[in-house]
């Protein structure tokens, strides 16, 4: 036993580690790929086709077999097979070569959309997953939940109206609210409005919007609007977007006279010896963390100042309603203030 070669031991060990890594690394691991491959059964494909058709029809586009095959990442033969089955079951029908949803198919599609959006809402409000993960996780979940589970989920979330991107969630009975508002590039300069929807596809543009820190529910004011760029103010910052990116934002203009506070800043920019009044909490802070901030007293109108600076740069402690509360930078940046 004692005259073995440690090099061999190490070699076997590292080989095992590499094999395990190849199999089980997140997302790209062979194990997950294989699992996904075997899970892509007919039901998933049918449901994905229905969903695609639903979205295409809603945006007024026509779909034939060719476009369908292009959008979906399945083997051509399985898509053809699925479409055949769906026609037999009267979920879809052909008008010449255009695929159309039947009444029954539309109901089915709405159910899938309902699960997807509810699940995104769940992920946003009740879990700690980052925004960029919501969509993909919901894509998997929408094929898993049955009707009862979906309704239970809806009850638990308090039957929400919109998903975190601002898309309406169809109700049990298939009722669906309308997205209020117009695409941002269509709004004239000086319009004041609330962002009601952020389109999460294509992902490239969505990620760009997320990176800009633009959120649903934020109040904005259009400053500049031309063919090269659109500039607007929101939550104390100026945003410059290309029209193609801005087109993914829907804004509902506010008709009533609203006082748009000028000089709004974020709590994270407060300096020592400065006092400020809280204007509100950015819509980016949601779910449990938003409630916690409110409960701690960070409400509209409250006075706030820095109580203690942190030796490591964060979190600073803020004096609010007579108590010293430490907030991290990313929390403080979600609290909107007006300095005195």
């Amino acid at each position, binding site marked *: *036993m*004692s005259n073995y070669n*440690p*090099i061999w*031991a*190490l070699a076997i*060990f590292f080989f095992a580690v590499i094999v395990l890594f190849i199999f089980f690394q*997140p997302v790209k691991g062979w194990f997950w790929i294989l699992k996904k491959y075997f899970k892509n059964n007919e039901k998933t494909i049918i449901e994905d086709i229905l969903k695609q058709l639903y979205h295409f029809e809603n945006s007024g586009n026509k779909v034939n077999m060719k476009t369908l095959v292009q959008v979906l990442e399945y083997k051509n033969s399985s898509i053809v097979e699925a479409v055949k089955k769906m026609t037999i079951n009267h979920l879809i029908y052909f008008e010449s070569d255009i695929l159309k949803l039947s009444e029954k198919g539309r109901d089915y599609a709405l159910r899938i959309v309902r699960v997807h959006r509810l699940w995104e809402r769940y*992920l946003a409000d*009740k*879990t*700690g*997953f*980052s925004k960029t993960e919501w969509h993909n996780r919901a894509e998997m979940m929408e094929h898993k939940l049955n009707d009862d589970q979906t309704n239970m989920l809806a009850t638990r979330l*308090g*039957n929400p*109206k*919109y998903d975190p991107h601002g898309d309406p969630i169809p109700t049990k009975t298939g009722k669906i*609210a309308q997205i209020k508002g117009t695409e941002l590039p269509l709004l004239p300069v000086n319009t004041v409005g609330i962002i009601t929807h952020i389109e999460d596809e294509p992902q490239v543009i969505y990620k760009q919007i997320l990176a800009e820190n633009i959120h649903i*529910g934020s109040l904005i004011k259009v400053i500049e609007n031309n063919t090269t760029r659109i500039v607007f103010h929101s939550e104390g910052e100026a945003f410059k977007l290309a029209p193609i990116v801005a087109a993914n934002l829907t804004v509902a203009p506010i008709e009533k006279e609203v006082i748009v506070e000028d000089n709004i800043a974020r709590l994270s920019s407060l300096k020592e010896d400065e006092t400020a009044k809280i204007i*509100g*909490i950015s819509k980016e802070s949601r*779910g*449990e*963390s*938003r*409630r*916690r901030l*409110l*409960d*701690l*007293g960070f*409400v*509209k*109108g*409250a*006075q706030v100042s820095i*109580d*203690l*600076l*942190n*030796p*490591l*740069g*964060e*979190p600073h*402690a803020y*004096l609010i*309603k*007579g*108590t*010293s*509360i*430490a*907030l*991290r930078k990313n*929390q403080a940046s979600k609290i909107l203030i007006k300095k005195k």
Partner: protein
Amino acid sequence: MNQKNIDHIIELSNELRWQIGDDFHDTLTESMYANASNIVKNTVQNDNSKKRFQLDSKIDQIVTSKSFGFPIMFLILGLVLWLTIIGANYPSSLLANLLLDTIYPSLKSLALNIGMPWWLTGFLIDGVYLAVAWVIAVMLPPMAIFFPLFTLLEDFGYLPRVAFNLDALFKKSGAHGKQALTMSMGFGCNAAGVIATRIIDSPRERLIAILTNNFSLCNGRWPTQILIATIFIGALVPKSVSSLVALFAVIGIAVLGMVFMFGVSWALSKTVLKGEVSTFNLELPPYRPPRFWKTLYTSLIDRTLIVLWRAIVFAAPAGAVIWLISNINIGNESLAIWIIQSFDGFGFLLGLNGVILLAYIVAIPANEIVIPTILMLTVMVTGIAGGEGTGVLFELDSITDTAHILKAGGWTLLTAINLMLFSLLHNPCSTTIYTIYKETKSVKWTAFASIMPIIIGFIVTFLVAQFWRLLA
């Protein structure tokens, strides 16, 4: 009561929620605070509450300042640990004297006098009693010093400032600043550290703190580390500096534990725990002069005795098991020898040996009895003189004699280093495992918390052993 009407109410509330929109909670909270400030306006005179107390802010300025904040913190933590380790020596040996050198022999002679059969005496006195006595002697004094000191700091209000100072560090690994305190509490006892995670109110960060608390080298493991470091590492250098070098080796292990704590916290927050909800808040309460005697009393009752009781409950059966495996023979050899021989190969691969592995299995209830178990088993395996008999735990007052036995058992410098590593990186003791289950109420996380460190321990000792043998 009419079910239909109730359904109607609920439907109605859903409908109304749709109309009101998402802002309900915000608006309600705002109105409540507006109400509150209205009431206060009429009733509180000379309202100074907007300003914090002068003395409080003075203290805060100092303990969170760039230049003094950290030195003060390390000084206090170092002092607490030093007082615990040094201060526990005397009462520990007193207790050991009483429980092991006085009561134990008289119990034995009593058993002999009343004619108890040898196996019952062995099982009850050599097994159960000895293990329990050992745990009490080693565990009680440091905990009785550490917990009151810690509780005094807590009651004074200093600990939230430590969390405040260190939060940025913990944030980098996805954890909460308050984990600094549960970690420090873990230096006293991991089970108490796990209970202390209740102060973390964010679910994700609390789980991280629970799962990584075991990487704090607890009271039960300090003596093992110090003993082995003194025998094997201190011996490498001239006598004048040997105790200093040994001390640094132990501190090195403790620091390595913190490195693992940060690393594992980071990995957990990025993988399995990323879906858990994370909210941060940290209130810095006003300082309040602690009430010394009351604190002493409550920390003894609430922390020390509860943890000690749990440890005793688990140690008693362990003592029985240790005695049984040494005294039940299969063929010509005792059960213990059979197990040790079958573990020897794997143990060698990890730079350890079968005795150590078996000792760690039977000593799951308490790390305190690892060294006595190792000594007893080593004597049994090698057949050298020493010890009190098969299945009877013992420890030697003389470090040279201990070194002699261990070296006879085939220990080298590698064995010593890997034992120190393995003592840091192995499953939590059963008291802690039980506490983790009580706190998380989840079999999954309890299993994870138990298995994860031991896998890390296997990998680390394995790698160290291979590279050592390659380079030596």
